[in-house]
């Protein structure tokens, strides 16, 4: 009986570790996938909690409360089968999990998550550097700017003009034509 419990506990631990690992990997992709895997993890500990109440009375109170959140996460069914009939598996759900190293054009990025009671409580970046191992500017996003916040220039101070393609006729009255004429 004890061996069976120990084996199933080990199985449950492995299952939760894998779930944690997967959410660690997914977190590098999108936040929405993190949310879905997080529900899955909660679901598995929830089922642990409900069976745990039959095994040991000492942890039943706290495990029961996590079980209630688990029941809301119906997507945790995959973890539920391996976690059934075990005690103490919810304790294993506390820990940190490192995702795989993902190559981006800003350099290597690796994310670590901390899981407590089946919930992701912290997300940190283990690796966030470029080839020279300097910290890098992650965002090159285009943001709204006012007209006087962008680089300014007068046509007298530039050597060439970029604009939507003009026809040969329209060129005559373009700023580029004026520059070209000055340099002929």
């Amino acid at each position: 009986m004890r061996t069976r419990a120990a084996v199933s506990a080990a199985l449950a631990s492995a299952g939760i570790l894998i779930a944690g690992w997967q959410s660690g990997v997914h977190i590098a992709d999108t936040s929405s996938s993190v949310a879905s895997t997080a529900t899955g993890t909660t679901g598995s500990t929830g089922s642990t909690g409900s069976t745990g109440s039959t095994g040991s009375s000492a942890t039943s109170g706290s495990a029961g409360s996590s079980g209630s959140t688990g029941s809301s996460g119906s997507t945790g069914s995959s973890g539920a089968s391996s976690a059934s009939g075990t005690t103490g598996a919810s304790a294993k759900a506390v820990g940190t999990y490192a995702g795989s190293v993902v190559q981006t054009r800003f350099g290597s990025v690796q994310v670590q998550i901390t899981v407590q009671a089946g919930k992701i409580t912290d997300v940190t970046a283990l690796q966030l550097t470029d080839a020279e191992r300097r910290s890098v500017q992650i965002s090159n996003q285009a943001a709204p700017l006012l007209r006087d916040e962008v680089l300014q220039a007068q046509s007298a101070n530039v050597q060439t003009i970029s604009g939507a393609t003009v026809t040969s006729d329209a060129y005559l009255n373009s700023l580029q034509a004026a520059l070209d004429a000055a340099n002929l």
Partner: protein
Amino acid sequence: MQPTSELAGSALKARTFGSMGTVISLTVPARALGTAAVPGTAGGGERELDAAAAAVARVFARADETFSLYRPDSEASRLARGELSLRDSSAGMRDRYADAISWRLMTEGAFTPERPDGVLDLSGIIKGYAIGQAGEVLRSRGITDWCLNAGGDVLVMGSPVPGSGASWAAGIVDPLDRSALLSAYALGGPGARRALATSGLAERGDHIWTARSRGAEFAQVSVAAAGIVAADVLATAIVAGGTAMLHRATDSWDIDVLAVRRTGELLATPGFRA
């Protein structure tokens, strides 16, 4: 030894010619030309520039002969009429077609080489490709400081003041007032971005079809990149694909973007910030 006035270095020489329905300008610092010429006899440098401009013009003329849909006798027109199939077309045609299809994949369809009527139109990448080829021709002629502008798409090499390391200053037209500049960008010099392309709704040709059919968000989009084809294609793709494509482009490529919404509001990457 040249007179000091010429060594001051800001003097530029330009040549222009028409091709592909627009005007191409080649600008070179006077100092970079005719270094062997005797000062005062003026001619060596001018002749060198004329020869370089002629070589550049030949690149554009060749591209236009093959790819223009405005010429009934071009290979592209014969393809469009169904007289020629892609598998029987020239290697150059198939290479550019492959380029265009890979850009369509990379931009998730925002850039496409096909018109809504199904006709293959590679004009969206041909100009950029020709500009790049012309740049190689200039380089092979030993000219290392130049600025090439084809209807508002710009590729540079070196500096307007040879040896100084100074960038070429490119102005960007204000789409709401084409006689004024909206912004500027430093090309070449110490920077890796040598190309600047601008696409807009006012654009000649009609390779931005999705924009027309959906109601475009942007009046004008400028993209600075290392290469002119990437800059040109991505500017076109962002006009067609709107804000979603803009963010996808800045996430996936090493570029700077200045986008002007139809309302006049600006979106810009940090590289355009004053």
